[in-house]
């Protein structure tokens, strides 16, 4: 049995060393995978992530590439299906021998790619804000984690707006539940209370009962972790039942420019969202970015949103890491990415050497009638990522460090 195992290992090593011979011949280009859903229900958002990634690659190539090498993107379609993400990730890593995959939007798709990426010692850049509770050494996370969305959000709602009673509502899956966990701690720490914590299935579109419940609950603010197309029917019902965003504002952690555009600015006006990026950020970098993106996708009205910008910046972060290391092996890039810092449309982002998440600047926006957010509050400095903040992780007591996850702290 042991002999068999050794034999297997030998074959694996042989099989693995062959690819590198092939790689040497194409030394003037670096292959990377771009894996988002181009079809299916999630393509609404993920198509823009794919576009933003490819646009960044084009820009870098137009400026002479990375260390004189061109980046060659291999685009695959995850088809809104986690299983397909797994298969396509395998294809990219094993057959195309990419050195990095840029991809994934939902946590389900990330979890599906993870075994392939980790087993093959490859590298994934994941752009979505997500629930945390992950400490992979093969993923650079360019989206925010709960503490970066909520740490200034809850105090703002309690202290600046004077809200004392939270109604927490979300779609029924992992992200909203983890967000609620972090939020409850912060609500209590700030001397406010939460009166309800309710969930509806993904894609739920009949909000009559829930909105009535909110109205009857006596809450003075709603913390919404509702995702996807449910957002539209939720905000509309809220408006139709005559609840004013002035009295009981919806404070969302998910609603971005995309949802507001589909919803109609009128229904969202007055509600809040916390994200590191809004299209309304008034910097030259951001204005230029919006202009370039609209030209790239050939749509003068295209909206930009947080995950899309993170996908775009991922490529620049990656390029900087490749230049720094001078090598193109996935784990060398990961090692070099630690501490890499870039300044783009959403401000300064820095990869944490400990947990490979990014520090970034949380902002709070209030939505206006025209479908854009007006930034009402922002941190002075980028906030450190704490993927385990729901379980008591603090800046002085990290659970996820360069040496891995300390599970005794959980």
């Amino acid at each position, binding site marked *: 049995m042991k002999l068999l195992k050794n034999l297997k290992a030998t074959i694996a090593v042989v099989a693995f060393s062959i690819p590198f011979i092939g790689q040497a011949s194409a030394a003037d280009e670096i292959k990377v995978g771009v894996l988002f859903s181009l*079809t299916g*229900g999630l*393509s*609404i958002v993920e*198509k823009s992530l794919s576009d933003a990634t490819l646009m960044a690659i084009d820009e870098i190539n137009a400026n002479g590439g990375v260390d004189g090498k061109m980046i060659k993107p291999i685009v695959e379609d995850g088809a809104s299906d986690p299983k397909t993400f797994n298969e396509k990730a395998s294809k990219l890593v094993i057959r195309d021998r990419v050195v990095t995959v840029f991809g994934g939007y939902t946590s389900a798709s990330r979890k599906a790619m993870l075994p392939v990426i980790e087993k093959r010692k490859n590298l994934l850049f994941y752009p979505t804000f997500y629930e945390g509770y992950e400490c992979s050494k093969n993923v650079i996370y360019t989206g925010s984690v709960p503490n970066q969305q909520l740490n200034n959000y809850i105090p703002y709602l309690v202290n600046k707006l004077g809200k004392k009673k939270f109604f927490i509502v979300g779609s*029924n899956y992992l992200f909203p539940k983890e967000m609620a966990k972090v939020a409850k701690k912060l609500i209590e720490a700030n001397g406010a209370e939460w009166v309800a914590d*309710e*969930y*509806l*299935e993904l*894609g*739920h*579109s*009949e909000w*009559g*009962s*829930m909105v*009535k*419940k909110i109205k009857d609950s006596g809450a003075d603010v709603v913390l919404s972790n509702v995702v996807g*197309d449910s957002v*539209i*029917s939720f905000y*509309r*019902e809220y*408006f*139709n*039942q*005559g609840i004013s965003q002035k009295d009981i504002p919806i404070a969302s952690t998910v609603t971005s420019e*995309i*949802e507001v*555009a*589909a*919803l*109609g600015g*009128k229904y969202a006006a007055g509600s809040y969202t916390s994200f590191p990026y809004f299209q309304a950020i008034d910097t030259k970098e951001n204005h230029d970015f919006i202009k370039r993106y609209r030209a790239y996708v050939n*749509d003068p009205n295209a909206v930009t949103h947080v995950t899309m910008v993170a996908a775009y910046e991922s490529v620049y972060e990656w390029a900087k890491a490749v230049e720094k290391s001078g090598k193109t092996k996935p784990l060398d890039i990961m090692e070099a990415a630690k501490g890499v810092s870039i300044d783009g449309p959403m401000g300064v982002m820095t990869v944490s050497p400990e947990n490979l998440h990014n520090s970034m600047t949380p902002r709070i926006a209030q939505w206006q009638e025209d479908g854009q957010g007006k930034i009402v509050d922002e941190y002075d400095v980028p906030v450190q990522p704490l993927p385990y903040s729901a379980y008591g992780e603090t800046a002085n007591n990290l659970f996820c460090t360069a040496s891995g996850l300390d599970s005794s702290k959980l």
Partner: protein
Amino acid sequence: MLDTVFIGLSIGSILLLVALGLSIVYGSMGVINMAHGELVMMGAYTTVIAQTYLGFNLFAAIPLAFIVCAGLGLLIERLVIRRLYNRLFDTLLATWGVAILLQQAIRLEFGLSFFGIHIEGLGPGLQSVTLPEIMTESFTVGEFVIQPYRTFIILVSALLAVLTWFLMYRTRIGQQVRAIMRNPDMAAACGIDVKKVNALTFAYGAGLAGVAGVMMSGFKTVMPDMGSSLVVDGFLVVVVGGVGSLVGSIVASGILGQLNGVVAFFSNDIIARAVVFAAVIAIIIWRPRGLFNYKGR
């Protein structure tokens, strides 16, 4: 409490809106139209397109969506359904295929997106419809909040139910449809042009779906997938109410809507949905042919 009854009534009226067309087609032709939800979706997109290009508001889109979807229904009947009479399972599969075709047609903008042409209002994204001002401003009577749009939906579905009743029981063509429901062969023997009547029935059912689509567009997300969940709700009503029974559909949608609203009020919508499904199962066990049904066929 009145609020809860109102929400239940509103949910029920939406169910009825979707189920009405389905029930007529299923009842008179024995065709399970899996594409019904997609016809609703087409109705919703008609509203979006009419608003974007013709400046139509929601009210003006109602007759337009009826005509567009009825025309589409006629086409589907001619090309597919007509060739599959008396083959229940084949029509099931065929109309499901039609459903997928319609969904993809919208998603791929009738194939034009392959050539890089983008039609505003189509494609895989979410679309939105602006409601007329009077439909969005809610007002209160005492404790009770009146939502104009939900009230409007209740009125429209009541109106369509009355219209359908009138067509079925007070016109010559309705009489023929009912004759076909009871026994198609006998009806044919009596000189009824079954093919023609069936084509018209299907077109009418599709037209009703179109109107439902206009109503849906006002408070649900308009997107290519929106129809697939609606057809399930529609079937629940048809099955509970009894195939081909107009009264059955009305009663069933009322019961299921109220059940949903009340349970959602006391617990939450997820449990309400489970209770609705459980009730449907119980009713089917108790009365396999639904609450009201015709003998015959």
